C-alpha cells in the first residue's frame, strides 16, 4: 500500500506543479494556458537535447534548460502573444493558446529533430539510485520530484507572501488598473509571472518525462490532468489546486492496487481518474452556480474593459460567387487528380463536413466546444458497427448513427448551458478525453488500432465517386447551415450568443436555441465522422483523439470559422497539405502545415477574423475603392 502512495505522491506532485503554473498565469493575466503541455514539451526536449544528445553535465543542462530556456520562452511568448490576449474575447483567448499548443511541438521537432524513442531521463543521475525505507521502494527521481514540489511550494509561498514582488503579483490579481495606478507597471509584473510559470512548466515536463515519455501526447495528458485540479480550485485557489493534484496522483496510483494490471478495465480507468475528478468538481460547482465566467480584476478594470472592448462582428453577407467557385474548384480536383490525391481530397471533404459542425457551434453559436471530434468518432464507430456487424447499408448506417448521437450532444449542451466559456471548453475537452479512454479504446472498437472495417457503398468504391459523394453531402449540409444562418433560427442564435438579457426580454428563451445549435452541430459532426470512416474504409479510434480535435479547430479558425466554404477549404487543406509537403519536400518538413495552422490560430490574437474573411474583406475593400474611390468601409470583424 505504502509503495502505491509513494508512487502516487510523485505523480501528484508533478500534477501540482503543473496546476500551480496554470493557476498563477490565469489569475494574474486572465489567460488560461492551453499551450502549457507544449511549453513543457519544448523545455523537456531542450533538456534532452543538451543532456543526452550533447552530453552536457546534468546540473548544467538542467539549469540552462529549466532555469534559462523555460523562462526565456515564457517571456518571449508573453511579449508576442499572451500580452495581446487580455482584452480579447474568451474565444480568441482560448483558441490562440490552442494554436500555440498545436504549432510549438512540431516547431521544436523541426529544430531539434523528431525523437523516435520517447524514454527520457529525469533529473536523477544515471543509473537511478533506489532506496528501500520502511519496506517500500523509492527511487531518486521520485525523491527529486518531492523535493522539487517542496521547493516550489516554499519558494512560491515565500515569494508571494513576504516579498514586494509577491505583493505586486497579488495586487495584480486583485486589480490591474489599481496596480498601475499605484505606480507599478502591470506589464513588468506579468512578464515575471509568465517567466516563473514557464519555469514550472519546464520543470513539470522534465520531471514527468521518465514516466510519461518525452512526447507531446505525454505532456498534453499531464496538462489535461492538471486541468482537473485547476477546475477543482475554480481556476483561482492555489492551495486547493495543489491539494487536489496530490490527491489525484495518490488515487490514480492506489486504485491500481485493486485492479488487475492487465485487464481492459484497468487500462481504461487509470488514465481516466483525473477526468472523473474534474467531472465531479464541475458538477459540484455547477450545482452551486459557481462556474460562471469569473470576472478578472475589480470593478474599475471591468469598467475600463467594457469601454475598451472593440465592437465585434458584422455578419459577412458575402455573395454566392466565391463559395460557388470554391465548391466548383474542389469538385474538379477528383476529376483531374490521380487516385492517391483524389483519395486525400475525399478524406478532406469528409473532414470538412465534420468541421462544419465547428462552424455551427463555435462560429455561429459562439460556444467553445472542443469535442466535435468526439461526436464524429461516435458517429464513425456506430456507423461502422452497424455496417460491419449488423449488415446495414453504409449510408443508412451513417445517417441513423448520426441521429443516435444527437441526444448526447443535446445533453452536453443542457449540462453546460449555465457555465462560463472557459468551463465549457474544459468540460467538452474532458468529455472528449473520457470518451476516448472509456469508449474509443475499448477492444471492441479499438481492435489493436485497426478500428472497425467500414465498407463504402458498392457504387462509390473508387476514390473519385466517393469524393464527389462526400462533396454532395457537404453541399447539402452546407446549404442547410446557410439556410439556418439566414433564417429566423439564425437570427435567434446570433441574438442569444451576443446578449442573453436582450434575448430574454424579447421573449426568446436561451434553452431552446442552445439545444437547437447543439443538436444540429452534433448531427453534422457525426455525419462527418461517418464519412471519415468511409474515406478511410475503417472507423479508426485513433483519428478521433480530442487533441487532434484541437488541431481541427486551429485549422478551421485559421481559414475562418464563419464562412461555410471555410470548413471546406480547411478540411481539404488539412488532409492534403501534409502530403504535399511530404511528397515534394524533405520528410522533416512534413509537419510544417501543422505549424502554419497553429500560428494561424495564434494570429487570431491580432486579427480575430481568420484568413478567408480577412482576404475577402481586403479584396472587397479594394474593389470598392477602385469602383467608387469612396473611403473603404471599416468592416470590423471579430470571431466572438
Amino acid at each position, binding site marked *: 500500500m505504502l509503495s502505491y502512495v509513494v508512487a502516487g505522491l510523485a505523480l501528484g506532485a508533478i500534477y501540482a506543479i503543473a496546476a500551480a503554473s496554470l493557476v498563477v498565469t490565469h489569475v494574474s493575466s486572465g489567460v488560461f494556458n492551453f499551450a502549457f503541455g507544449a511549453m513543457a514539451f519544448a523545455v523537456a526536449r531542450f533538456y534532452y537535447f543538451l543532456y543526452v544528445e550533447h552530453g552536457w553535465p546534468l546540473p548544467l543542462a538542467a539549469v540552462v534548460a529549466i532555469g534559462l530556456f523555460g523562462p526565456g520562452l515564457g517571456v518571449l511568448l508573453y511579449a508576442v502573444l499572451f500580452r495581446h490576449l487580455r482584452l480579447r474575447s474568451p474565444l480568441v483567448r482560448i483558441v490562440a493558446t490552442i494554436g500555440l499548443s498545436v504549432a510549438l511541438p512540431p516547431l521544436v521537432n523541426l529544430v531539434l529533430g523528431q525523437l523516435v524513442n520517447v524514454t527520457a531521463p529525469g533529473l536523477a543521475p544515471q543509473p537511478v539510485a533506489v532506496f528501500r525505507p520502511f519496506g517500500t521502494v523509492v527511487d531518486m527521481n521520485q525523491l527529486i520530484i518531492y523535493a522539487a514540489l517542496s521547493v516550489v511550494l516554499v519558494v512560491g509561498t515565500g515569494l508571494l507572501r513576504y516579498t514586494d514582488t509577491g505583493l505586486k503579483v497579488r495586487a495584480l490579481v486583485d486589480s490591474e488598473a489599481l496596480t498601475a495606478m499605484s505606480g507599478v507597471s502591470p506589464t513588468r509584473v506579468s512578464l515575471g509571472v509568465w517567466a516563473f510559470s514557464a519555469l514550472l512548466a519546464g520543470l513539470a515536463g522534465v520531471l514527468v518525462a521518465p514516466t510519461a515519455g518525452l512526447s507531446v501526447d505525454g505532456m498534453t495528458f499531464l496538462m489535461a490532468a492538471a486541468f482537473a485540479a485547476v477546475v477543482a480550485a475554480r481556476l483561482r485557489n492555489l492551495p486547493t489546486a495543489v491539494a487536489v493534484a496530490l490527491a489525484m496522483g495518490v488515487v490514480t496510483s492506489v486504485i491500481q492496487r485493486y485492479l488487475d494490471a492487465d485487464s481492459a478495465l484497468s487500462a481504461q480507468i487509470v488514465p481516466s481518474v483525473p477526468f472523473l475528478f474534474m467531472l465531479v468538481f464541475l458538477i459540484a460547482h455547477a450545482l452551486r452556480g459557481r462556474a460562471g465566467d469569473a470576472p478578472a480584476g475589480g470593478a474599475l478594470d471591468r469598467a475600463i474593459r467594457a469601454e475598451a472592448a472593440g465592437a465585434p462582428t458584422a455578419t459577412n453577407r458575402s455573395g454566392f460567387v466565391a463559395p460557388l467557385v470554391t465548391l466548383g474548384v474542389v469538385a474538379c480536383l477528383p476529376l483531374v487528380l490521380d487516385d492517391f490525391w483524389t483519395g486525400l481530397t475525399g478524406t478532406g471533404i469528409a473532414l470538412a463536413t465534420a468541421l462544419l459542425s465547428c462552424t455551427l457551434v463555435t462560429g455561429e453559436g459562439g460556444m467553445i466546444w472542443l469535442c466535435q471530434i468526439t461526436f464524429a468518432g461516435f458517429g464513425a464507430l456506430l456507423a461502422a458497427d452497424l455496417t460491419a456487424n449488423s449488415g446495414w447499408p453504409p449510408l443508412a448506417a451513417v445517417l441513423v448513427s448520426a441521429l443516435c448521437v444527437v441526444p448526447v450532444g443535446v445533453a452536453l449542451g443542457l449540462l453546460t448551458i449555465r457555465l462560463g466559456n472557459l468551463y465549457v471548453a474544459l468540460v467538452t475537452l474532458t468529455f472528449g478525453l473520457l470518451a476516448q479512454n472509456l469508449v474509443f479504446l475499448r477492444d471492441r472498437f479499438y481492435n489493436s488500432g485497426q478500428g472497425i472495417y467500414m465498407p463504402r457503398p458498392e457504387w462509390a468504391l473508387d476514390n473519385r465517386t466517393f469524393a464527389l459523394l462526400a462533396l454532395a453531402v457537404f453541399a447539402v449540409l452546407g446549404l442547410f447551415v446557410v439556410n439556418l444562418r439566414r433564417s429566423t433560427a439564425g437570427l435567434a442564435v446570433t*441574438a442569444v450568443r*451576443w446578449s442573453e438579457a436582450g434575448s430574454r426580454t424579447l421573449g426568446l428563451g436561451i434553452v431552446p436555441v442552445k439545444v437547437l445549435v447543439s443538436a444540429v452541430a452534433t448531427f453534422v459532426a457525426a455525419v462527418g465522422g461517418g464519412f471519415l470512416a468511409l474515406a478511410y474504409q475503417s472507423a479508426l479510434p485513433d483519428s478521433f483523439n480530442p487533441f487532434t480535435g484541437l488541431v481541427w479547430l486551429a485549422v478551421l479558425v485559421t481559414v475562418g470559422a464563419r464562412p461555410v466554404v471555410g470548413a471546406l477549404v480547411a478540411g481539404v487543406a488539412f488532409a492534403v497539405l501534409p502530403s504535399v509537403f511530404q511528397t515534394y519536400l524533405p520528410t522533416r518538413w512534413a509537419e510544417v502545415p501543422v505549424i502554419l495552422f497553429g500560428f494561424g490560430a495564434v494570429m487570431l490574437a491580432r486579427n480575430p477574423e481568420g484568413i478567408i474573411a480577412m482576404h475577402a474583406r481586403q479584396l472587397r475593400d479594394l474593389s470598392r475603392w477602385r469602383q467608387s474611390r469612396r473611403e473603404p468601409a471599416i468592416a470590423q470583424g471579430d470571431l466572438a
Partner: protein
Amino acid sequence: MSATSGTTSPRIEARGVTVRFGGLVALDQVDLSVPPASVVGLVGPNGAGKSTLFAVLSGLLAPSKGTVLMDGQDVTGASAQARARRGLARTFQHPELFPGLTVREHVVLAYRLRHTRHRIWTDLVTAGGFRRAPVDEDRRTDALLAALRLTAHAHRPVSGLPLGTSRLLEIARALAVDPGVLLLDEPSSGLDARETDELATTLTGVVADHGVSLLLVEHDVELVLGMSDVVHVLDFGVKISEGSPAEVRADPAVRAAYLGADHGEERTSA
C-alpha cells in the same frame, strides 16, 4: 394596436418590492404602478436602486420580498421571456444589441418572435432563409425603422453605430413586439443635447401612435419631468416622493437628495 385589456388595472405594478444583496438593502418596500397609456418617470441619484427595480420588473432578478403584477395578474415567478410574451419590453442603460445582426435584422427578429414565432423551427425545413419576407413583416419593420429614423442605417451592422442610434434601435426592437408597457433604462445617457431632444420627440410620438405605457428611468431630470404624467423618486432604495412633475420639483426631500442634505436649501433660497 397592442394587447390592451379592458380592465383599468395597471399595465405593470410593483407591490412592496424588497431586494437584498447580502446585507445591503437595494430596494426597500417599493410600490410603483404604470397605468395604461401613461408615462411614468423614475428618478433618483446614483445607486438609488432604479436599475435594480427595472431588473425586478422585467424578470431578470427575483425580489427578496414583494410581488410584481402585469395587468392585475401576479407574474413574480414568471421568467423574463414569459413576461416579454405578455407584453413587457425594455431597453438597457448599456444597449443590449446583437453585434452579429444588422439594424433591420434586430427589428425583424423581434417582430417574428411576436407574430410568427414558429418560424424559429419551421424555417429550417422550409428553407425560410432563402425566401422573401412576408409583406406584413416588411411593412411593419420598415414603418418602425422610419418612425425611429433608422431607415438610413437599416443594413448596417450594429457595431460602430453611434450610441444615440443604438438607443433608438433598442426602442424600435422593443416596439416590434407590440408591447403593452415599455421600460426605458436611461434612454438619454451618452447622448448629446440635440440627440436627447430628438429622442424625447420620438418617444412622445411613439406613445401617442402605439398606445404604449412607458416607464422611464433617467438621470436627465429635465427630460423626465417634461415627459411624465407621474414621477417617482428613489433614494437609497426607498421611495421618497411621488406625484406630478410639479409636485416632485417642489418637494424639499427631492432637492436634498440631489444636492446633499445640508447646503441644498440655503443655496436655493440665496
